[in-house]
């Protein structure tokens, strides 16, 4: 009646809600896996478990891609949320990019096998944890955009907080790497990895800022 072709409006809506929730779950889970991947890599240097985890991230990334396409298709095909459709799709795309960044980091660890001396392990793990916390806060922000618009600002603020923390940890670690006695090529190589991990936070913050604008637009 409203533009839906076969199934009812409400059952389609519920299915789509589940898909979007599932997408955010994937982003959150990929982060949690990534949080374990870094210490696993550092402690056992590219053993079977690490490869298994990278494979898991790859699978989740494909699943997220599939959901993005399905949601995009349904939203346009059935003309749902006309006022917020483009915002929601852009949001999903940017979150998908975030999953891609996690995956990219995993691949780089797997292919380039950077050697982090023991003295940097703790800092690198801490940076990774902050980055994952930042993305977790983003997941909350996104969930609140869909359900509880009043909480978007509060959760968005947490993303900003973790992003600043991450910047501090990145700067400190990068400084320590360049102050060390390692050869310059290794210093550059390690800095590349640290920077790539920190960039996930920058992207998360950009998305959180976007969500806050979308929330203002969505206000009744």
């Amino acid at each position, binding site marked *: 009646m409203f533009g839906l072709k076969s199934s009812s409006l*409400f059952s389609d*809506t519920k299915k789509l*809600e589940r898909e979007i929730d599932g997408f955010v779950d994937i982003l959150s889970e990929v982060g949690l896996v990534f949080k374990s991947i870094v210490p696993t890599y550092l402690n056992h240097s590219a053993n079977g478990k690490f490869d298994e985890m990278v494979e898991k991230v790859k699978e989740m990334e494909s699943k997220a891609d599939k959901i993005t396409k399905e949601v995009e298709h349904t939203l346009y095909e059935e003309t749902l*949320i*006309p*006022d917020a459709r483009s915002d929601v799709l852009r949001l999903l795309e940017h979150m998908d990019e975030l999953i891609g960044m996690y995956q990219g980091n995993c691949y780089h660890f797997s292919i380039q096998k950077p050697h982090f001396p023991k003295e940097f392990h703790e800092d690198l793990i801490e940076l990774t944890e902050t980055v994952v916390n930042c993305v977790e806060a983003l997941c909350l922000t996104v969930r609140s955009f869909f*359900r509880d618009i009043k909480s978007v600002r509060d959760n968005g603020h947490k993303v900003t907080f973790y992003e600043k923390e991450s910047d501090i940890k990145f700067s400190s670690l990068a400084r320590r790497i360049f102050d060390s006695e390692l050869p310059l090529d290794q210093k550059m190589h390690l800095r590349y990895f640290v920077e790539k991990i920190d960039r996930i936070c920058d992207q998360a913050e950009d998305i959180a800022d976007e969500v806050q604008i979308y929330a203002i637009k969505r206000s009744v």
Partner: protein
Amino acid sequence: MDISIIIFLLGGLFLGWSLGANDAANVFGTAVGTRMVRFKTAAIVCSIFIILGAIISGAGTTETLGKLGSINALPGAFAACVAAGISVYLMTKAGLPVSTTQAIVGAIVGWNLYTGSATNIKVLITILGTWVLCPVISGLIAMGFFTLTKNFILKRKLHILRLDAYTRTALLLAGAFGAYSLGANNIANVMGVFVPISPFTDISISSFFVFSSKEQLFLLGGLAIAVGVFTYSKKVMFTVGNDLLKMSPVAAFIVVISHSIVLFLFASQGISNFLQSINLPSIPLVPVSSSQAVVGAVIGIGLLKGGKEVQWSVAGRITIGWFTLPIIAALISMILLFILSNIFNLTVSF
């Protein structure tokens, strides 16, 4: 039936078409403008409920309009309807959401002036009074509903998609109610002037059901409105939906329901009788302007949001249109009456 009667009735049907093209857009304009309801769906629901409203509850306002000036010759009624239709068409062309209500009142007064018949000043003042009250009441209802709905949504924490589904359903239901109220309130504009001189006779379908001549007129008018909805209202719907204030779908629903309530209030014999029975002042059964109701509701919501988003220049243009429309309709009515009586030698009043 005499061919001339059919020609004269065409005047009413033309006005009905105008009403469908312009006023009906008010009912679903916000829903279609925000792309929450497809035009085709809106047009079908709108047409069905306008016809139902006209046949079931259209009598009250017709009576009031009859008191303003009882046009007693078919050519006179034809001139009044065509004058109202042309003036609404001109205003619609200018992109101003006006109503057939204002046009037909202007045209009837024009007939009174031309034929030297007395205008019932008391009724005229009542009608003009409701034109001021209508947007105010609609605005107040919209403000109340908007606050309640906003709080409800924030409290219930509905998913954006669930809210979308509920809003679509609500828009369609409110639109159906609005179309029914529009039919009930505004059919008088289209067919009211023909009621005293109806060419139809009552049809008894069984001993229980009689399809009166008035109802047949209202059905005909309702069909003309439906044709207007399908052929010309799409553009006006998008104007109403987007120009005055950029609205969210929920706000669009508030506008439709507020407009519908106001139209229903001014058409419901039941509510009027009830208020009288508990010694409250009764609501006059007057054909009010659906455009005024919509604009009132939109401005009400705009004011609640701080007033910055309202396009005041557009609101000003619309208001000027409300003042000029009855005058234009009266003038065209007098010109047409002059042509009919002096060139075609037709009797425009007895």
